[in-house]
């Protein structure tokens, strides 16, 4: 075939290519902006801003998760996922409240297990700031039970698989 035409076509295609990636997403989140990949499963966290959970350490280091489920997997096996960190190094743990999509203190949150709302990794522990919110959600979305932060054990996690 004739090369000049092919090269002209190539120039055209190359010129077109940038418009393919021209799509820009404005950063919608306020406050904590999800970044990096999940410290447990490696998924890209900013892709799922509605579920992003974060652990902040005393020294300012952060670990992001694409959902509360991976957050708890991490917390329950810190030795495996962050060998250099201790539980007492953790300054704060934050999850996104389902109804407001704003970060709340994970230790004070209530989690609904077994609902029909799926997270990025399937079944999720859906977080709420208050217990009445969790109760309403449980009713609306056929949840099984409400668990506070302290009562989430490796056995609870088994039920999510």
């Amino acid at each position, binding site marked *: 075939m004739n090369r000049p035409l092919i090269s*002209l076509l190539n*120039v*055209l295609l190359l*010129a*077109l290519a*940038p*418009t393919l990636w*021209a799509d*820009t997403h*404005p950063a919608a989140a306020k406050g904590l902006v999800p970044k990096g990949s999940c410290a447990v499963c490696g998924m890209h966290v900013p892709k799922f801003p509605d579920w992003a959970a974060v652990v902040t350490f005393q020294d300012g280091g952060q670990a992001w998760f694409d959902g509360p489920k991976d957050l708890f997997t991490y917390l329950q096996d810190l030795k495996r996922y962050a060998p250099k960190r201790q539980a007492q190094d953790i300054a704060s743990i934050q999850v996104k409240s389902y109804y407001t999509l704003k970060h709340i203190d994970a230790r004070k949150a209530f989690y609904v297990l077994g609902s029909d709302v799926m997270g990025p990794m399937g079944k999720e522990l859906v977080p709420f700031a208050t217990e009445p919110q969790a109760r309403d959600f449980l009713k609306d979305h056929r949840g099984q039970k409400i668990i506070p932060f302290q009562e989430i054990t490796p056995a609870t996690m088994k039920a999510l698989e």
Partner: protein
Amino acid sequence: MRPSTLCLSVFSALAALFVGMLLHARGRQSTASQERAGRVALVRSLGLTDLCLFTEARYTRHPAMADRHAAFQDHPMALDHFPSGSLLAPPLFPSPHAPLPPAPSQRP
């Protein structure tokens, strides 16, 4: 000059203009959010739901808010009185996301 030289230079000029067009489009896109800011502020503060494209009737001015069967007020495939009626596709009802009406309850 050979005709092919002239032809190739015309085509290179056209191709350069074409690339320039793509770059111009990208440039406008990158400043689009500033250009759009005034419109976005109005949409937000007034809670607007539609673009002001056709003002001839209420179901063409606010297609998203129109009565259930607008812009095809008589039946979904009916021809319309206005030219814009032929530009708007029939609404996609019943939509998969629209909530189902609750089952009729017993009346006292």
